[in-house]
């Protein structure tokens, strides 16, 4: 081994040492920086997290206080026929807003069949229409009703 070679080896060793020191320095700095940003990282146990899983609606046709919860329809004979035939395309709110006689419901069903892709209701139609006229009968309003549900409040001038 020449003197030259020994010197080169020595330089290499010093170089490696320097690289190692530098790497350690960078790593420590990195850890410190991360610690300032996220101190909880160094807690040994991760805080216990409960994954809360909401049970999927067990009974989607639940009835509460005589009302079919999902649609708001009154629980009475023919309810599920109405739910299954009348709330696919539109909301039950469109049904319950409307107060019609048998004749006009039948005409409305025919209109839905002719223009809105409603299927043939067969013998169920009578049960459905009976449900509607029994539970959502037309209310007589005359030519002008009295004001109702007035929410009274003091008006300061």
């Amino acid at each position: 081994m020449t003197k030259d070679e020994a010197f080169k080896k020595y330089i290499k060793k010093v170089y490696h040492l320097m690289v190692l020191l530098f790497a350690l320095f960078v790593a420590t700095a990195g850890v410190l920086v991360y610690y300032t940003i996220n101190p909880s990282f160094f807690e040994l146990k991760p805080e216990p997290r409960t994954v809360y899983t909401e049970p999927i609606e067990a009974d989607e046709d639940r009835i509460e206080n005589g009302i079919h919860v999902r649609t708001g329809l009154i629980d009475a004979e023919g309810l599920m026929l109405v739910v299954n035939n009348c709330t696919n395309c539109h909301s039950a709110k469109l049904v319950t807003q409307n107060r019609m006689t048998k004749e006009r419901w039948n005409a409305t069903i025919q209109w839905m069949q002719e223009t809105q892709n409603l299927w043939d209701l067969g013998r169920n139609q009578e049960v459905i229409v009976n449900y509607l006229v029994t539970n959502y009968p037309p209310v007589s309003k005359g030519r002008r009703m009295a004001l109702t549900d007035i929410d009274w409040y003091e008006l300061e001038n």
Partner: protein
Amino acid sequence: MKRRDFVKKSTLSSFAALIGAELVFGSKMLEGYKPLALQDTDPYKLFKKNPNMVVLNDKPWNIEAKAHLLDDAITPNSSMFIRNNGLLPDNLDAESWTLTIDGESVAQEKTYTLQDLKSKFKHYTYQLVIECGGNGRAEFDPPAKGNQWTVGAVHCASWTGVRLRDVLKDAGIKNNAVYIGYHAVDKHLSLDPNKEPISRGCPMHKALQNETLLAFKMNGEAIPMVHGYPLRLVAGGWPASVSGKWINRISIRNQVHDGPKMTGSAYRVPCESVAPGEKVSDEDMCIIESMPVKSLITYPKSGAIIKTGNTLNIRGHAWAGELEVAKMDYSIDFGSTWHSCTVEKPANRLAWQHFAAAITFPKNGYYEVWARATDSNGVSQPMVLPGWNPKGYLNNACHRIAVKVK
């Protein structure tokens, strides 16, 4: 274990539990993104509406205002009613949006990008009353079919766009043109892709009016999605259904347009008046054009209790379809005597007009303040319901509020 990953995974698994299915590629989901199935279905947040608006129907969405929510001179989005015949369209992209002018009576079928419309034609801004043909339906007896609107299916916003006339003329209108019919991208309730939920229009004379716009701005901003972004036809003074939303095609027709909700009994009233509840065949029903004279007391809210001797200042808006409101009166004795209100000129043709009055009451008690507008032809609002019609349109009976003096 990286904490963030842990959190993300646990959130994903709880999402999955909620939806009842595994989220494939869930790990590639953007941070902070909520799967569509879990997005807000609260209509007030979704459409940025005042929490006192009333949801009449949630499929399709139909939401109305109350009189006191319409107090602004120019209606803000938060108080504008929502009327839909079908389901809201998805993936509305203004960048790639086009409008095609076609039909039997177009000289040359032509397609414009939204950018073409904006750069090629002059812009105009008008305040325009848009009222649902069925506003007030809830009062009809026997009840009429459809959403049971009370008083709040009306608004007057400021619309900016290009004149429909300029665009139609650019494409060329043949001499035999009779009507225009719009087409849009909303979806039919049955999800049948071959069905349009609604495709209405108006006669050429209305289409060619100065104020009939292809609008891309509402109250100075892009039109909200539910009100027709990115392009809406706006025809003030006519049933709101003429002002088609999400428009991508307008046909110049050589006949009265026959799209869905133009025919049958939709947006039609008996050509000759009928007794309440009378059956009317389709051929005896005529298309509604200009809306009738009407007004709303927007301040105070019904139910005000005032002190003896205090003056009650009322205000509101009045409109008259194609016409102007010439006179505005109020009564506190159920129409026995009428007193005049001040009424302003409209900001432009087809805008609503603001009225006001200062009322003193002779003694304590329960009162109703009734408001009655009269149009430029001398026609006034009725105090009772106007002529019954099978679909319950055009109820322009006087609006009233309850007041107590004590």
